C-alpha cells in the first residue's frame, strides 16, 4: 500500500480507525457512521480528523462540518463502483470543500487521471509500482473535453480562445 498526495509519495499520517476500534492519539480517519455517532467528541479532539464515506453515503450530509475536516476518504470497495466520482465533484463544486479528498480501497492506477479530474488529491494505491507511475499516468492525456473540478481549460475553451485570438 502506498499513499500519493499532490502527486508525490507521502507518509501516512492518519490512522484509519474502524467503527469499534479504540481511538489512537493523533490524526484519524473514522467511518461516517461513527462520525455521526461521536461527532462532538471527535471534533473536540485536538488532532486532524478525517471521515471515510462509503459509495452509498451522501456527502451532502457532511456539508456543515466540512471546514473542520482535514480529509474526506471516499471508498472504492470495488474499482468499478464509480459513485465516489460524483461524490468528489459534489464536495468540490457544490459544497466547496477545500481539504484533502482521498481515494481509498480498490484504486487502480488507470483510474487516477479521472479521479484527479473530479477533485481527488490523494490516492491510496495497492501496488508501490503504481505510485511510482503516478506522473506517467497523469501525463497520458494532455487535453480534456469536459469541465470538471480540476478547472482545466477544456478543448472547447481552448478552441474558443483560438477563435477570439484570430479575430
Amino acid at each position, binding site marked *: 500500500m502506498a499513499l500519493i498526495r499532490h502527486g508525490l509519495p507521502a507518509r501516512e499520517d492518519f490512522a484509519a480507525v474502524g467503527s469499534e476500534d479504540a481511538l489512537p492519539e493523533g490524526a484519524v480517519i473514522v467511518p461516517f457512521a461513527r462520525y455521526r455517532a461521536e461527532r462532538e467528541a471527535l471534533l473536540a479532539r485536538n488532532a486532524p480528523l478525517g471521515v471515510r464515506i462509503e459509495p452509498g453515503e451522501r456527502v451532502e450530509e457532511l456539508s456543515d462540518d466540512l471546514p473542520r475536516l482535514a480529509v474526506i476518504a471516499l471508498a472504492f470497495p470495488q474499482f468499478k463502483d464509480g459513485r465516489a466520482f460524483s461524490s468528489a465533484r459534489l464536495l468540490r463544486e457544490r459544497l466547496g470543500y477545500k481539504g484533502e479528498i482521498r481515494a481509498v480501497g480498490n484504486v487502480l492506477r488507470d483510474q487516477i487521471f479521472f479521479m484527479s479530474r473530479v477533485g481527488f488529491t490523494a490516492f491510496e494505491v495497492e501496488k508501490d509500482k503504481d505510485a511510482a507511475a503516478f506522473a506517467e499516468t497523469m501525463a497520458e*492525456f494532455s487535453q480534456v473535453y469536459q*469541465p470538471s473540478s480540476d478547472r482545466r481549460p477544456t478543448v472547447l475553451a481552448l478552441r474558443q480562445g483560438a477563435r477570439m485570438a484570430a479575430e
Partner: protein
Amino acid sequence: MYRYDEFDRTLVKERVAQFRGQVARRVAGELTEDEFRPLRLMNGLYLQLHAYMLRVAVPYGTLSSRQMRMLAHIARTYDKGYGHFTTRQNIQYNWPRLGEVPDILDDLASVEMHAIQTSGNCIRNVTSDQYAGAIAEEIEDPRPWAELIRQWSTFHPEFSYLPRKFKIAVTGSPHDRAAVKVHDIGLDLVKSEAGEIGFRVHVGGGQGRTPMIAMTIREFLPKAELLAYLEAVMRTYNRLGRRDNLFKARIKILVHETGQEKFRAMVDEEYALMQGESPIEVPPEEVARIVAYFAPPAFERLPDADPATDRLAAEDRDFAAWLRRNVKAHRAPGYAIVDISLKPIGGVPGDATADQMDLVADLAETLSFDELRVTHEQNLVLPHVRKRDLPELWRRLKAAGLATPNMGLASDIIACPGLDYCNLANARSIPIAQKLSERLADQALQEDLGELKIKISGCINACGHHHVGHIGILGVDRKGTEYYQISLGGSADENTSLGEILGPSFTEDDAVEVVDKILGLYRELRENGESFLQCYRRVGARPFKERIYGAH
C-alpha cells in the same frame, strides 16, 4: 462530415499510446487478466469463443471512403479478410491478436477512428439516423449534436464507471430509424410551437433481459442546455442506479422503479443545483463550427427524374426491384439515398469482405460525395447519389453481391453473432437467419409480405433486437441444445412496442417452419393491404397462437 482538429487528434493518439502501455503491462505480467479485462473492455477488446474481438466505433454511423478503406485494410492485414457490422452501427473484427491491437488502433487513429468506449460501463458510441442530412422529412441533421455528445462523453471523468453501460441515440426525423425509445437516453429533435428547434428527451429504454420503452422526461429541451441536462441525468443515474444486481443496473430499472414524475423531478433538482458549478456550456461558435462540417454537400441542380434510369427500370425487373426496395427519396431533386444490402440470400447478416468494403469506399468517393453510413439494421448506405448514376451503381453493387433488393423485407434480417462467435450466447443466430432468408427468398413472395422486420438474438442480451422485431427470435439453451423462442408485434420506430412471446420454444428447424406458418396466417388475415405489424396489432396474438400451438 466532421473532421478532427488538433485536439481531437491528440486525444485519440494519446489513448492509443495509453492502451499500448496497458497491453505491454499485461504481457509483462504487471497486470493480471482480472486487472486487464476492464482496461481492454474500455477499448472494445473482448475475448470471444475463438479469439479476441475488437469493436471499432463508427460514431453515429457516418464514414468517409478513406475510413472505409482503412476498415478494409485492417480486415486484410490483421484479421481474416472481413468484418461484421453491428446493430450499434459499429464494426467488429473477430480474429485480432492482442499484441497487434495497438497497431490496429494506430491505423484507425490515422483516419480519425478509434475503439474508445465501445464496451465497458461508460457512455458508448452515440448512434443516429442513417439517413441524416439526406432524407426529406428531417427537421434538422442530428449529427452535429451526436458529435457534440461524442466529445463530451469521451473520457468523461465522472461517468466512466457507471453502474452499467449507457447508450444514447439521437434522431432528427419524425420517422424514427434510430430506435431512440429503446436507448438509455433517446433524443428527438422537435420543433416547438414557436418554431424553435430543441430536444425531446426520453430516458430509460432498453432491451436485454428486461425490455422497457423509455419514458419522456422533457418535452422540449433548448439545444443550448443539452449537455448540462445530460450531465444531470447521468449524475442522478451514477449515484442512484443499482449496483447490487447486474441485471438491475441499467438506468431503465432506476427510472421505472422511481416512476416518471419522480425521476423527472430528481433530474430537475440536480439540474437546478448544477447551475453555477463547472459550466458545461457550449459556445454558439463551437456549435456553429461543428454544424459547418455537416453542411449539405454541393448538390448539382438537377431535374428530379432521370430518363435513362426510368428506362432501365421499365426494361429490367431486377433493377426495378432494387429501385423499389433499396433506393429512397432524397431531399435534393435528382438525388437518391441508396441502401446497400449486407443481407444476401443465405448470407451472414452484416458481414462484409475487405474487397466489398473497398468497392463501397470507391463508390462513395465517386458517386456519393465521399460519404457512407452504417445502419443499425446492419446495412450500409450511400446517402447522396445522383439518380442518373443509379444504373451504374446498381451494376457494380450487383457484381459484388451487394444489390439484394430486400431492404425492409423478410430477408433483411438482423442477427447478432450468436453462438458462432459470442462467448455469452445460448444458441446460434446466424444459421437460422440464413435458413429463413433462403426459405423466404422469392422476391414476389417477399414483396407480397411487405414490410417485415425479423430480428434474432442468440441470448437475452438482445444485441439482435429481438424484442422489437415484428417477428423476434431468441436463442435459448435447453439442456445444452439450442432452442428458439418466438415473439410477435415488436417495433422500434416512433410507435415502439415490445414483442409478445408466442409460447414454448422450438428447435431450429421447427422455428423456421413456425415463421413460415405465421406469415401464411398473416396472408390469410390481412385486410386492405395491412402490413404484418398492422395486422398483428389489429388481430392480436390469439389467432397466431392457435395456428401454431392448436386451439386448446
